């Protein structure tokens, strides 16, 4: 922060100055073959300037006094180019200055590259020896670290170091000539040393993954049509993020989202309260904790739906001014050369009071969807998620596994159909949201009982 303060004298309009380094590392074994063994580092400086209603942005991979001053100058020239062409009345919410530092790096002794490679190999060896009928297996260790230092002309400043380490295990079997697969993620926020102790800690969950895979391969295709289902936390989280979250990002609202007309209206069952948490839930850090965003705004929780009523949208400085409200820290950028966009942070439905076993017992003929693949949503709130692990529910009991399927619907209608919400809360560890840029996000929640369209055969 002190480093950047030296450049504040070069700010002439509203200005953001950011230094950032992203680090990536990946080790991937595919059927015993090491197909990926890579490290990547991307760092640089960027500046964004607001002048007469227009933004200018510039970035440079070199970080030194000259490049930083040049970057600020170029961002100013870019803003001037647009403001000369067209004077606009757009304003921005400047908000109070806020300073914060967050270092989530490990305090432990770092494990060597060889140590991590051996860890992954041991998992791969375990799978190879124990499950001999697999036709394919992938074990991937993936690290992402983001180190940001920001100064704004308002006086906000931050330094944050956020690491995430994941191990992803994907298994595949052959069923009558058809490859069937399933995957599981381990890890989350933190360095390797804070998350993984010994490979055998993962074995029990890998065994469970194999069981799901076998059930899936012996299972059936889901029946197409509207069904009564239970969405487990993984799917409830993606529903909260993709289908509701995106439609309530203020830039999407201004772009025509259906949620524009829903503020203070009932949009879901009163069992549903949905929040984009800034950094903590019940006093515990969320997967992607944000205390100050990349526009220098202090981050606070955004309660999107409260007891079924749509309450708030998520804003950056510009949309907050347009809506005559305050920003709560939703503006984030992925790489140093990216401009901040309105992004979710940690989006989840709050737990209810039901027990998962009672929810399953209450369904005569439906499905229990446990693990999602990818998901997409629309400005109309129509969404689609892939389901990669799930089971039939017959007469209140779990029955046969199901093959890959897709669920879809209008999110607000689906949430209106919610009749039970479980009392547990599970955060997903591997969220990565795609908009113009990708960005790591947290998503999670309880299990939800609702009605949904299933795209089976």
């Amino acid at each position, binding site marked *: 922060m002190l480093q950047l303060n030296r450049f504040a004298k070069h700010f002439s309009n509203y200005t953001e100055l950011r230094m950032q380094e992203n680090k990536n590392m990946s080790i991937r074994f595919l059927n015993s*073959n090491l197909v990926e063994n890579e490290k990547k580092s991307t760092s640089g400086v960027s500046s964004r300037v607001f002048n007469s209603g227009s933004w200018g942005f510039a970035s440079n*991979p070199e970080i030194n006094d000259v490049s930083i001053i040049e970057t600020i100058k170029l961002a100013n020239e870019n803003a001037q180019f647009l403001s000369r062409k067209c004077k606009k009345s757009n304003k921005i919410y400047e908000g109070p200055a806020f300073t914060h530092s967050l270092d989530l790096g490990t305090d432990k002794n770092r494990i060597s590259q060889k140590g991590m490679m051996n860890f992954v190999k041991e998992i791969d060896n375990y799978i190879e020896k124990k499950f001999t009928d697999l036709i394919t297996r992938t074990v991937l260790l993936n690290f992402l670290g983001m180190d940001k230092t920001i100064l704004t002309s308002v006086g906000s400043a931050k330094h944050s170091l956020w690491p995430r380490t994941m191990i992803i295990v994907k298994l595949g079997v052959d069923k009558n000539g058809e490859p069937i697969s399933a995957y599981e993620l381990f890890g989350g926020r933190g360095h390797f040393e804070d998350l993984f102790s010994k490979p055998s800690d993962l074995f029990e969950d890998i065994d469970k993954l194999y069981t799901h895979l076998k059930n899936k391969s012996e299972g059936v295709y889901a029946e197409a049509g509207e069904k009564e289902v239970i969405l487990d936390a993984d799917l409830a989280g993606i529903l909260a993020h993709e289908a509701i979250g995106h439609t309530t990002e203020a830039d999407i609202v201004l772009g*025509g989202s259906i949620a524009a007309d829903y503020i203070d209206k009932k949009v879901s069952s009163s069992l549903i309260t949905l929040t984009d948490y800034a950094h903590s839930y019940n006093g515990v850090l969320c997967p992607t904790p944000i205390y100050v965003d990349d526009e220098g705004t202090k981050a606070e929780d955004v309660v999107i739906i409260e007891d079924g009523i749509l309450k708030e949208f998520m804003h950056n400085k510009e949309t907050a001014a347009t809506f005559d409200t305050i920003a709560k820290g939703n503006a984030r950028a992925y790489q140093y050369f990216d401009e901040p966009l309105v992004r979710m942070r940690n989006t989840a439905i709050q737990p209810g009071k039901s027990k998962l076993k009672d929810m399953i017992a209450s369904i005569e003929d439906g499905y229990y969807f446990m693990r999602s693949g990818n998901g997409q949503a629309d400005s109309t709130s129509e969404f689609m998620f892939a389901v990669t692990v799930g089971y039939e529910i017959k007469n209140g009991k779990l029955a046969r596994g199901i093959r890959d399927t897709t669920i879809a619907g209008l999110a607000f209608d689906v949430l209106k159909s919610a009749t039970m919400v479980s009392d547990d809360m599970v955060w997903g560890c591997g969220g990565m949201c795609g908009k113009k840029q990708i960005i790591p996000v947290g998503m999670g929640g309880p299990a939800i009982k609702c009605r949904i369209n299933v795209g089976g055969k």
Partner: protein
Amino acid sequence: MANNEAVNKTMKLLSEAKLEKYQVISNKSKNTEMVVERGEISLLRTTTDVNLQITAVNKNKKARINTNKTDDSAIEEAIKNVQELLETSEVDEAYDISPFQETKQFESGDKEPSKEDMYNLITRFIEAVKLEYPKLNISESSLTFNFAEVNLVNSNGVKYLQTKGIYSFYVVFTAKDGNKVSSMNFASFSMGNLEKDLLDTATLRTLIKENIEQLKTKPINEKFVGDVLITPDYLGELIDAFAAIGLSDGSIISETSVLKDSIGETIASSKLTIHSNPRSKHICDGYSITADGFEARDLTILENGVLKSHLLGLYGAKKTGRERAENSGGAYIVDAGDISYNDIIKKVKKGILLARFSGGSPSSNGDVSGVAKNSYYIEDGKVQYPISETMIAGNIYDMFKNIKEISSEQVNFGKTIMPWILTSGVTISGK
């Protein structure tokens, strides 16, 4: 440091490190982007970046480092890191770099953009939309010029230089009328120059017109197995999925590809021919060199339904003992058929026009299901109405086998050239 200086310095240090085989790629790029938000140009963004990639193979072990710093100390650290990764790597005889090929330079496109021309082109687009399609909201859009200089050098004497300037445009839009909102749609394409109005490029005007029609949609109140007329906008995505599950390194090495032993076999309708032509003069956004160090050449993947080539890179080819593909895929061109789009519609008894698909990644066996977006119901040879909440389930391989017609019209998106194709046997289920 200049791009070639950084590469030369890196090669010298790698040689001094006495590694057996190595490849260095330096990609220096400059982007100029104009971003449109809510119907006006909101941001001008200029960025520069460089990526120095070092790949080393030593004692049949392989490692790779990427950094965006090219000063002496950064290069020295990158080489130290690659040596450390090599130590921890696994022995695999399939690791290799490309053999000697003749030194070549490839150039395409402008070197610098005209900001004025970019501004004028995108302003004309915004104004035309406001005038001709007032119900349309441009949610997000950008016009970008990217200039990239790629140096690829390896220890077998390969030296390639590729410079490319390309304009690209994308736009996301929805229509709004009172409290009615259409499903969002998007268009993206690449251009070698700024001569043509954006609204008249690729299928953009059609997609916008249709999006306004889609303010009023109806669900299909039944489930049936019918025809699907796939638009050029979605066909490119379908071919990408086909390549990923059936032709790529990963799918062949893991043996999950059902096409792993199908070279020379008929796997699709005889009407279907797919090329991957990154060097075609008709593809402005192609490429001339592959990441594994070869000059890219055009190839035919599927000829009259017969599989001609996988898309194996150097590692995949050596690992599986199969033939390396002449390029890295992409730049797909599907040959035109001999019947017009209008005449294809007339042949559809019952089905949908599939303009966009929101679905899960296809399974290895080709199964795919999801929602038909921005699509239309077709019955008795006529497009009837825009649909909503309609799910489809099918199999990519079956879709290619069941092709009934391919249109004589093609659309050039700069990166791909696609016709409309009519296929059948897809489960279509309404609410």
